[in-house]
């Protein structure tokens, strides 16, 4: 008798736990040929707000970790992803219909991307900060700090695109609520399982599966969200309306790309820099 496989229930990732959507709704994730992959939790407005709450709660602790520690935690995520390499490759092949070579390229690039960003944790302050030569007897130093809670619409690249928007946000100490690719949600759930087992404190990354057009407006207008990353929004009208909503509390906005992004290319610091604030401290010099 052949063994019956044990199927996984795909859930949301909020505050380090794996709840179903409070709405009780699901949607079907399909493979490249239109076949059934799994029922995914269809996140609701309430789930999005719960996720913001979890992200806010995690911000104080995560942003005050030492840079070395944050770097290690993010690096640890890469280690755990490496252990799931075959699973990721399999999932990319199933979801996107990629051949083995291509799927491997994307998975390896995703793991390497996390490693790349991990190394920035204890360096970006030196690169983006400044000692300022003011013309008076003052010590004057500018340092970048994380902006707070970041809401992100992830690009459709189900793994490389996803980590390429999460990593630059969290490595500086932000916490994020990310809406995973609507079309390819399964790898995002696997990534959340990597996160849950990689020393990343609960709430630092919260992953919602569902419809960006439904959830993103609630995140864009949420008054306790500090920044909005529209990397995965390809509808210009939706992008503009989200930007308008974001103005209610002057969220920092990383705009939707106007041309296709090559996520395989080595990133610049733009995403990381777009989610930090520069703080300048003055103190008199004297005896």
């Amino acid at each position, binding site marked *: 008798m052949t063994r019956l496989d044990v199927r996984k229930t795909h859930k949301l990732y909020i505050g380090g736990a794996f709840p179903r959507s409070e709405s009780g709704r699901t949607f079907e994730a399909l493979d490249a040929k239109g076949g059934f992959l799994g029922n995914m939790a269809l996140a609701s407005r309430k789930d999005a707000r719960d996720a913001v709450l979890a992200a806010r709660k995690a911000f104080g602790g995560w942003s005050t970790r030492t840079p070395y520690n944050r770097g290690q935690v993010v690096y640890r995520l890469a280690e755990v992803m490496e252990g799931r390499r075959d699973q990721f490759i399999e999932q990319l092949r199933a979801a996107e219909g990629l051949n083995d070579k291509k799927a491997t390229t994307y998975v390896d690039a995703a793991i390497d991307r996390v490693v790349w960003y991990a190394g920035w944790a204890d360096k970006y302050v030196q690169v983006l900060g400044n000692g*300022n030569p*003011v013309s008076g007897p003052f010590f004057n130093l500018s340092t970048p700090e994380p902006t707070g809670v970041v809401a992100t619409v992830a690009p459709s690249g189900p793994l490389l695109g996803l980590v390429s928007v999460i990593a630059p946000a969290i490595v500086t100490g932000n916490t994020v609520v990310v809406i995973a690719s609507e079309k390819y949600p399964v790898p995002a759930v696997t990534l959340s399982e990597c996160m849950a087992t990689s020393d990343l404190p609960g709430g630092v990354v919260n992953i919602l599966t569902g419809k960006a057009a439904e959830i993103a407006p609630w995140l864009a207008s949420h008054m306790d969200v500090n920044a909005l990353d529209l990397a995965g929004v390809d509808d210009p009208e939706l992008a503009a309306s989200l930007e308008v909503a974001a*103005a209610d509390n*002057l969220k920092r906005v990383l705009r939707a790309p106007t041309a296709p992004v090559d996520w395989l290319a080595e990133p610049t610091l733009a995403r990381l820099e777009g989610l930090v604030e520069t703080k*300048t401290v003055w103190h008199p010099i004297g005896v």
Partner: protein
Amino acid sequence: MTKFEYAPAPESRAIVDIKSSYGLYIGGEFVDGKGGSFKSISPSTEEVLAEVTEATADDVDLAVKSARQAYDKVWSKLPGSERAKYLYRIARIMAERSREFAVLESLDNGKPIKESRDVDLPLVSQWFFYYAGWADKLGHAGLGPDPKALGVAGQVIPWNFPIMMLAWKIAPALAAGNTVVLKPAETTPLTALLFAEVCQQAELPPGVVNIITGAGATGQALVEHPDVDKVAFTGSTAVGKAIARSVAGTSKKVTLELGGKAANIVFDDAPLDQAVEGIVGGIFFNQGHVCCAGSRLLVQESVYDEVIDKLKQRMSTLRLGDPLDKNTDIGAINSAEQLARIKELSDVGDAEGAERWSAPCEIPDSGFWFAPTIFTGVTQAHRIAREEIFGPVLSILTFRTPAEAVEKANNTPYGLSAGVWTEKGSRILSMANQLRAGVVWANTFNKFDPASPFGGYKESGYGREGGRHGLAAYLQGASA
């Protein structure tokens, strides 16, 4: 504390020649606008100083076209070293003509001459000098080997530091290789119009700087003009949000420097005499018309009585009156409208149960004035602790522990600046780390320098002005 009586010592206004009316400065010359005009008055006397043109949408379009043409044909083709020399010229001319500008600024704005003369104008010249040196060093700004300008910058500035805000906007824009259309505030257009003459004196190519005057509608037409690549705005948070909405879905790069409600935190081990000077400077500098003013004083309970006594004594020596008098500490409120706003919020302070105390001083018969005022017994729920008053009104709260001070200081949608007064170094650094504000002044307040980035967290806006960060705001390849 003895208050010495001084004889009047007014600065002569003969140094400045105010024309009876001004056109718009477009394409290197003054042109008539297509709309009407409005009057700029002196807020200390209500005397009409000049008639100024109200630029229409067509005028704005003409100015943007002029800036675009100057960008395409001249400015973007000049080597950085040549742009630098123009900016150095402007810096030098501003220094040479600084007294003239200071007098005009105090007349049009109402601020004391000792501030316009000793703070605003020196910083203006320095700002141009500082950014002049960047113009041929852009490849060293950390944005790649050859960062490109954005194009045409539309800049809208407020009335509290008219010529200084002009310098903060124009200097980095031109250094980075952009051309600009700048709109000064409707109540304080005159120094910007005088600056147009400086551009002519410096022989700046026509169209590189365009100055258009008008009110909100003119500013909106500029910000929303489709051929503007960069929007830089300093002003209220409400207008800042409107701008953020209006540029949604465009590729315009935006920096917003908006309101604040800064906490100025005094610990019990602070050097109290210095702290009191810092409190007074923090809220009464420029009549409190300062976005980064220390408008919420947080005093540790154990020194509360002593701080309040010293503060009242010090405030009793402040001289309110003629902005052109060299001994004046507190000038005029900029406009009748702003005075009404200050009065309204102060009345709300009374009504909500806070206790008002104003420095005893004579209020002149004409013009707009408000005596330096403090409110004690303020709680975080009071509107005067939450809303920006933008006047010489200080709300005083108390705290017991550093954690409580941080909690209260950060309990605001704003995040522009903060002050910390303590002799303990480790406490300063701990507070500086925890305060969610773009500028933290420790044992000092209201210090500005072109080399030092300035700008806010949260609803105080985004982007930085000053320093390398301020330069990046006018170049491609930077997110800010």
